[in-house]
Each structure stands twice: as structure tokens, then as C-alpha cells.
């Protein structure tokens, strides 16, 4: 026990304590000043805003994907099921360069989109795309076990009571998936906010336009403006913890919905 706690403190607690201590070195005014600088605010806005939008896309697409994987049989289903894990397993730098190459002006997907007048690489749209990529597994894998375990009798009950298929799906099945969907959404959101490697290649990294908060932290560090970097990091940390807290709450709420047999 002592060994574990020592190891843990060395490896985790001390570094994190350092982070917060550094922040407290700043006065509240300074802290506020850093945060309210235009560039910082924009970076935070871009990171959180695009992460939210990407998580929404993953919520919808994730629901469609998990439905197809669990409910239907089609050739290659097992393969696609395995593919869902790739964004999670692939090193972020690899994902970054791959997505950039794919969506660049001359890329396989970038070229047709350019024809339509849509520029993806080096714009906020690129950030959005990368955030969607890394969030794919979260909604799918969180909802999948719940959907698989769904009681068949519930659907039969609804049908025997006269509900048509749409009613059964929308009023009976989907509501019971809501806790899992929200958890998956929160996880995808939290991941996208903090993502670095997958995003910085495809983002334009132009300050105030396509610069994500993690990148700004790195830049401040390279400028030796440690306090600034720390301040931004603290904001991101607090936001992430809030998200995790909400997720835990959601999971606890989901437990109360399960009938105790």
C-alpha cells in the first residue's frame, strides 16, 4: 500500500500540485487578464465550440452506427465493428497527418470537396473533421452494450399494445438509451477538447481563427510564459473535471433506472 501511494504521489500528485501552485502564484487580476486576452478567449472558444459540435455529430452518427451494428446483419458487419476502435488505437500524430493528407486541396476527399467550394484542411472545418474522427468510438462503444442487453420483451410489449415501429423505437427504445448516449457524448466532447496530435496538422493554427487551446498552451510554453500556459491549462482542467463529474452523475442516474431484480 505504502509503495503504491508513494508511486502515485510521485507520478501524479506532485506534478498536478505543481500545476495548481503555479497558478496560485498569479493574482486574480493577472489570471483574469490572461484568460480574457482575445487570443486566449478565441482559442478556448474554438476548442470547446468545435468539440461540442463534433460531439453532436458523433452522437447522431454514433447512434446510427451502433444500431446498424447491433440490430442488422450485413456483409462485413464484424469488420466494421472492429473498425470503430481504430480512432482510439491509432497514434494521434498518425491520425493527424493522415487526415490532413486526405482532406488537403489535392487529397482524395479534399479535391471533390474543393470542387464544391468547401475547403477543409487548414481551416476550422479541418479541426471539426479531426474532432469527429477521434470521437467516433465513444458513443458507439458506450451505447453498444446497453443496446445489446435491451430486453426483447419490452419491444414485444409495446407492439402488443398497438404501437407501430416508429413509436416503439422513439418512445420505448431510444429513451432507455439516453443515459448511455449522454455518457458517450460527454466522453467524446472531453476527448475532443483536449486533443492535440490529431488536430494540429489539419488545423490552420492561425491565432484567433483556427488555433486550439492546447496549441496555445504549447506556444506559451515555448515563449517561457509559464503562467499564461498554466492559466489556460487550469481552465481546461476545471472544465474537463466538470464534464467527468457530470458523466459520473449520469451513470449513477442510469443505474437508478435499472429495475432491481
Amino acid at each position, binding site marked *: 500500500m505504502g509503495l503504491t501511494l508513494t508511486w502515485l504521489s510521485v507520478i501524479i500528485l506532485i506534478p498536478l500540485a505543481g500545476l495548481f501552485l503555479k497558478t496560485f502564484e498569479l493574482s486574480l487580476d493577472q489570471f483574469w487578464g490572461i484568460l480574457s486576452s482575445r487570443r486566449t478567449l478565441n482559442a478556448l472558444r474554438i476548442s470547446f465550440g468545435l468539440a461540442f459540435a463534433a460531439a453532436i455529430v458523433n452522437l447522431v452518427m454514433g447512434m446510427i452506427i451502433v444500431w446498424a451494428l447491433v440490430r442488422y446483419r450485413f456483409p462485413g458487419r464484424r469488420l466494421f465493428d472492429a473498425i470503430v476502435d481504430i480512432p482510439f488505437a491509432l497514434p494521434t500524430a498518425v491520425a493527424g497527418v493522415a487526415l490532413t493528407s486526405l482532406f488537403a486541396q489535392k487529397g482524395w476527399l479534399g479535391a471533390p470537396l474543393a470542387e464544391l467550394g468547401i475547403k477543409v484542411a487548414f481551416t476550422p472545418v479541418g479541426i471539426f473533421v479531426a474532432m469527429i474522427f477521434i470521437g467516433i468510438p465513444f458513443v458507439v462503444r458506450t451505447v453498444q452494450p446497453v443496446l445489446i442487453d435491451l*430486453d426483447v420483451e*419490452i419491444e*414485444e*410489449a409495446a407492439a*402488443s399494445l*398497438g404501437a407501430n415501429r416508429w413509436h416503439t423505437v422513439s*418512445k420505448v427504445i431510444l429513451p*432507455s438509451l439516453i443515459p448511455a448516449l449522454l455518457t458517450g457524448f460527454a466522453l467524446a466532447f472531453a476527448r475532443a477538447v483536449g486533443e492535440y496530435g490529431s488536430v494540429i496538422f489539419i488545423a490552420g493554427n492561425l491565432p484567433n481563427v483556427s488555433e486550439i487551446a492546447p496549441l496555445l498552451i504549447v506556444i506559451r510554453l515555448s515563449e517561457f510564459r509559464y503562467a499564461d500556459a498554466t492559466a489556460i491549462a487550469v481552465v481546461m482542467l476545471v472544465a474537463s473535471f466538470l464534464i467527468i463529474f457530470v458523466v459520473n452523475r449520469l451513470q449513477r442516474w442510469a443505474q437508478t433506472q435499472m*429495475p432491481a431484480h
Partner: protein
Amino acid sequence: MAIEVKNIVKKFGAFAALDGVDLKVADGELLALLGPSGSGKTTLLRIIAGLDWPDAGEVSFDGENALARGAGERQVGFVFQHYALFRHMTVFENVAFGLRVQPRAVRKDEASIRRRVKELLDLVQLDWLSDRYPSQLSGGQRQRIALARALAIEPRVLLLDEPFGALDAKVRKELRQWLRSLHHEIHVTSIFVTHDQEEALEVANRVVVMDKGRIEQIGTPGEVYDNPATAFVHGFIGESIVLPVDVRDGCVRLGGRALNIAADGVACGASKLFIRRHDMQVGPAGSGVLEGAVRNVRSFGPIQRAEVALSEGDSVIEIDAPRDRELRSGDIVGLQPRRYRIFAA
């Protein structure tokens, strides 16, 4: 509503769940489908409900072909063994569900729906739980709500799949009585599936005994108990003593020795003699057609149950005797069946 089922066959792969089943259910009766697991009783119920489809055969409701419609259109109320309540909806919303998903044209207005739900919750005596969620209810309460939900759509027939199977013994007994009185009040044709014979005999107007996808006997509880039509029914209902006998020229032999009992119209050959435990009279040695030595005795309640090794053949049987004359291990007793049946083996 009267139901008629003709020659239903249902196979799962090579396994015949239902092997040619014919049944007529009278309007307003409370019918039990009784049998061991695998007998096909739940499959039959689900086919009547429209949750499963037969491979061959007909089902008609009041003369109309029921197989032309799906479960939602047959107006059946189905109550599942594990209730299948919608856990994200309150009790009220569960019961109202069937009324709320009706097509616009038929759907009643919200006020009428509310009234009907309240009526039903009053009927099952649970209106005070109206705002709770299923997870906050006990098993017995959930089952009653499931019933109220099924009744909300004014079904022509009520189908219950082992409705009390998941409850403890005491709650089960209470709900049995309650179901019977409920049926008396609302008079909807009802069919329930059970493997508990006590339940079937206590509650139903008629009992359908099933085994291995076939109907063994249909009759009132009294008929099925007193006049079992087959060896299976005799063995399944009530506690029976079974002895292997040989019938030849009207003479019944157990272990080589002739017994002084009538052959009961059974043809020659190996057969089984069925005697209900409480129909076996126990007396001193020589007082009966059978004789045996008591091996061990257990007393509980008003009876003593003894293991007796018969002097004929190798059989060891269990008999019940009243407590007035105490039996001891080693006693020789005479056994006389007051009533018995013989079936071909």
C-alpha cells in the same frame, strides 16, 4: 370473444414445439395452459398473441382469421413473465401507453385517457403509485401494473405468460386469488400459462394439460384431477405412486405376483399402475392387496410420510398415513388402493 386454434404446428429447427394442437376457448372463460418446460404452452400463447407465427394451422378470433393481423392489431392484452414495464416511464405513463399510441383517428382525448388510466389503477388498487417508476415498485405491484397496462386497450383476450412465476410464494398465492376475482369482475376471455399445477387447478375454469407440444387433456380442474386421461396427466397433477405392472388375460401382476385388482380395461402388456398417495390406505399386514416393510418415516404437519419397500418386485414407494397410528421402521404394513388407474406403458 371465442378463440379457436386448429392443428397448429411450430418447429424450431428439428424440435417440434407444437405438434398439431387443437383448442377451443369459450367467450369469457379463464383457461390455464399447464405443462412442464418445453411443453409448448408459452409458444402457443405467443402464437395466439401474434408475437410468434405457426408453421401451419389456423387461429381464429370469433370466427375471423387472426393470423392475417400482427400483434398490435389483434387487440390482445399480453402480460409478460418479467412484466416488461417501460422503466423510463412512470406507472401512469406505462398504463396510458397503449391509449396514447393509437392512430389519430381512434385516439381519445387526453382527459378521457387520464380518466381511463385512473379507472384501471383503481381496479388494481394501485392508484397511489401513479407517479412512481417501475424500479420503485415491488414485484407484485409491477405485475398488477403490467396487467392494468394490458387492460387499458380494452383487449378481446387477456394472455398471461407465467404471470406469477417471478414472485415469492406468499405474493403468488395472494395474486392468484386476486386474478380470479378480477376475472370474475371484468369477464374478459383470459388464458394464462403456468407450470404450477396448484395454480392452474385453483384459478382456472378449465385446464389444458400439455406435454411435448401436444395437448394431453382438456377439462375442468376436477376432471383433470379425478379422471386423468393419460399417464402423463396422472403423473403431472397431484402426487402419484407409480408401479410397473404386467397385464395378462385381465390379470394384473406386480413383480410376478397377481394383484387382486381389476385391469381397468387396459390391453395386455407392460403397464403402469398409478395410485394417488392419499388414495392408498395403510393398515396392518395382510389388510391390503400390497404388502411392504417400512424403511423410514418422516412426520410433518398432519401426516407421516413413509418409505415402504414392497415385498412384490423391487419397488420402494412413498406413502402417506395419518398420525393416529404411528409407523416405525421395520413395521410390515398392508396397502390397499382405494382408487387407481392403469395406463399402457
